[in-house]
């Protein structure tokens, strides 16, 4: 009884802030974002929450087939997959005719203008423009002929006219011979180009909107996608509505084995998108997100660590949830969660023995149980499971949990028992669960005498600290952008240092050489051998403590059809159908 009163008190408190009235039109998909949003600009789209929204508004040349596994690319704004020259250096891409930007005040008559090949080149230049400090520069850096010279000229700065002229100067590797043809010339072979062009970074944006809004473009996104931006109440929610002028698309006719039985092909051939409205609620705290899911205000979401035991037994959903029509979708994340050391930091970056000591002092097994309910694989390196090149048997010697050994290495580092070592700052983003994980790290290191101060900030501030290389030590995850270990390993390539994906600012000549070599050869055993060498170099230098690769358990409501989440397929909302009759019926039970 006693405890129930507390539960009621706490739930009413938690809900007070986020109670939502059911919208009149129920053909809406509601999703709860785990972090606060920073920007809705593809150029700043390196974070998971923003990428949940951006691909609905903006589109790329290619997309991943919604159902097929392993994932397959298919044309989206492109007419077909590119034709590649014999030397593999020149890609010719035809784009679809008649694609229009969404209607917006930025166009002369308010009507969306047709998308031309030049628009893509403009959008990609924007990513490569050093003035924008975009997070996606790494996708083109060193890969496209002439782009680095162009970038260097802009970086020099000068008078506004000069800079503008430098921006408008052509790049030899990015050409548009006519309105519907793009020719990309590579500086060196780059086998992942098609994958990269399917990333939200490479979305097409209208120059008119960027010119009009300037930096405010991130609050006024205009693209070509199936959904138009309607509103964003900062810290609360983003609303998107169906774009009536969308160029169209149909639900796939074929899928992976088992999809037919799972009912994922019931809507085959039907026009997309199904839902009229998408609402993304910013709910960084796990409990209100869960409670909203339980009362049907959100349509799907993960299971917070503290609710796991009450939700799943033996890998199955509990009967009381099944009776409410809820379903479970489990998939492995293509990712690595890690504790990063800032290698640009004068203390941690220069002291290998100290990093080894900290790595040895971290008890990964207990963390896996405590924070992930054992629904995760212990990570030994940045290589992600379920992508070629992952070796489940590999053991990282510094991942052994051994306090005595850790103390020895701490002594070698020059700080016996932690004496003389200043407190290390561990940066986390601000939710209660993150704080608990932070406290866990603090306790682990305290055992060998290393003091840790936890710096907790909101997600946008946290990312800002990483981008400015200010975070001494931090907890974060990297989710693959495309199914390639090269994408995982570029988080350690020196040229993608912050604000790029190399948050730890790791800088190793040996690693860089191997990475550059791996970019030159096609996927295959030789490339995987290089990945393994890079992994070994990583293990030698300990720039991170890799912690886990998570398994995602997603609960979704009975009225949600066609849900098949995958980390790489980011534009899945257009395929999801809300069964409104069933929603009315099931919601009464919640």
């Amino acid at each position, binding site marked *: 009884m006693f405890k129930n009163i507390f539960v009621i008190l*706490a739930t009413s408190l938690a809900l007070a802030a986020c109670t939502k009235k059911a919208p009149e039109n129920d053909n809406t998909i509601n999703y709860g974002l785990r972090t606060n949003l920073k920007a809705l600009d593809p150029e700043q789209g390196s974070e998971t929450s923003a990428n949940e929204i951006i691909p609905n508004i903006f589109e790329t040349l290619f997309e991943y087939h919604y159902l097929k596994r392993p994932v397959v690319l298919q044309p989206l704004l492109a007419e077909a997959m590119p034709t590649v020259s014999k030397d593999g250096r020149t890609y010719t891409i035809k784009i679809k005719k008649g694609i229009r930007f969404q209607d917006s005040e930025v166009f002369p008559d308010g009507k969306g203008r047709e998308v031309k090949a030049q628009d893509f080149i403009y959008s990609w230049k924007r990513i490569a423009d050093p003035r924008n400090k975009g997070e996606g520069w790494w996708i083109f850096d060193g890969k496209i002929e002439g782009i680095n010279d162009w970038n260097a000229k802009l970086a020099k700065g000068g008078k506004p006219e000069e800079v503008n002229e430098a921006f408008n100067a052509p790049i030899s590797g990015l050409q548009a011979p006519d309105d519907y043809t793009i020719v990309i010339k590579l500086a060196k072979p780059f086998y992942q180009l098609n994958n990269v062009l399917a990333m939200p970074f490479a979305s097409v944006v209208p120059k008119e909107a960027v010119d009009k809004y300037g930096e405010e473009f991130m609050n006024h996104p205009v693209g070509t996608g199936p959904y138009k931006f309607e509103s964003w109440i900062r810290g609360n929610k983003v609303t998107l509505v169906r774009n009536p002028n969308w160029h169209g698309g149909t639900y796939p006719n074929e899928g992976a084995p088992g999809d037919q039985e799972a009912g994922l092909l019931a809507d085959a051939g039907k026009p997309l998108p199904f839902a009229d409205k998408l609402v993304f609620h910013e709910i960084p705290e796990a409990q209100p997100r869960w409670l909203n899911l339980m009362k049907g205000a959100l349509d799907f979401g993960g299971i917070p660590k503290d609710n796991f035991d009450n939700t799943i037994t033996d890998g199955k959903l509990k009967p009381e949830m099944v009776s409410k029509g809820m379903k479970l979708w489990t998939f492995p994340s293509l990712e690595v969660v890690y504790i990063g050391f800032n290698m640009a930091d004068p203390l941690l970056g220069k002291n290998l023995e100290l990093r080894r000591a900290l790595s040895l002092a971290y008890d990964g097994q207990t963390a896996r149980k405590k924070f992930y309910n054992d629904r995760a694989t212990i990570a030994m390196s940045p290589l992600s499971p379920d992508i070629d090149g992952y070796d489940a048997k590999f053991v990282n010697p510094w991942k052994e949990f051994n306090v005595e050994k850790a103390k020895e290495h701490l002594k070698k580092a020059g700080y016996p028992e932690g004496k003389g070592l200043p407190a290390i700052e561990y940066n986390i983003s601000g939710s209660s669960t993150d704080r608990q994980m932070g406290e866990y790290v603090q306790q682990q290191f305290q055992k060998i005498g290393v003091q840790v101060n936890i710096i907790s900030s909101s997600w946008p501030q946290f990312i800002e600290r990483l981008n400015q290389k200010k975070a001494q030590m931090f907890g974060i995850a990297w989710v693959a952008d495309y199914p390639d270990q090269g994408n995982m390993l570029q988080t350690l390539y020196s040229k993608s240092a912050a604000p790029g994906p190399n948050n730890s600012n790791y800088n190793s000549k040996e690693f860089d050489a191997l990475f550059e070599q791996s970019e030159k050869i096609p996927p295959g055993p030789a490339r995987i051998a290089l990945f393994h060498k890079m992994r070994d170099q990583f293990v030698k230098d300990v720039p991170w403590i890799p912690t886990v690769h998570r398994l995602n358990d997603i609960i979704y409501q009975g009225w949600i059809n066609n849900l098949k989440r995958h980390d790489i397929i980011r534009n899945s909302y257009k395929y999801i159908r809300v069964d409104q009759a069933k929603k009315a019926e099931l919601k009464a039970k919640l």
Partner: protein
Amino acid sequence: MVSIANKGRSLWADAVLRLRRDPLAMVCFTIIALYLLMSLLCATGVIFTDYNVTDNAQAYQPPSAEHWMGTDLFGRDVMARAAHGTITSLIVGFFGAALAVAIGTILGALAGYFGGKIDDLIVWLYTTVDTIPYILLVVAFSFVMGPGLNTLCLAIGLTSWIRFCRVIRSEFMKHREREYVQGATALGAGHLRRIFIHILPNTFHLVLINFSLGFVTAIKSEVILSYLGMGVAPGTPSWGMMISDAKLELFREVWWGLAAATLFMFFLVLAFTLFNDALRDALDPKLKNR
């Protein structure tokens, strides 16, 4: 009926007498004293020394003979955490309130004593600050200065002085025209002497009441801010942090963390509030001879 005021005791002696005759006040005072004693013993490492000892195998143990209030997520003793949380609360309460009272008293004294432009300026300052919701202001402060005990005391102190400033200002306005002040002026006392030696002691009972009120506000603010993740640094025992953990844990039916933090806070805040009332009754001359 002979009034106690007629016997010619000082205000303070009179107040102490009144307080001692009030059983509720004495109970509250004892509770506060016990809290103080407990936090002193905690701080000096005499009792509850295991507040930071983690044992992950013992996580979420319900209350038992060994752990009276059970254990938390990391297997730490909840009772010990809550007891140590008292230290955090009392530190923040004391320094937060002391800072607020110091600022409020000085500004209020200057405004009330000098009047004119100085008064206009100070009134403008506090009305401006007062238009910003208090909790938002505290949140803004902790955002700028980063979390931590010092920040918390500063943030609370710098945002909650307005009420004190108002009270002291009006009291000074009343006093500056009184005969004893005029007498002091006639004897050649300067402004500072008149403010701090002559008038301030006569308003001191208000300072004390305000301090004690501020104490309760500061304790509550600490809990709210720590709950929101903007209070003391993670890892420091704090009631707010325990309640923040509890909001996740309740679904595991782990209620003891919330219960411990809430009960510890409840008794301290209740005792303080009731004691405040008694203190005001005892010290406010207007309420004498009731």
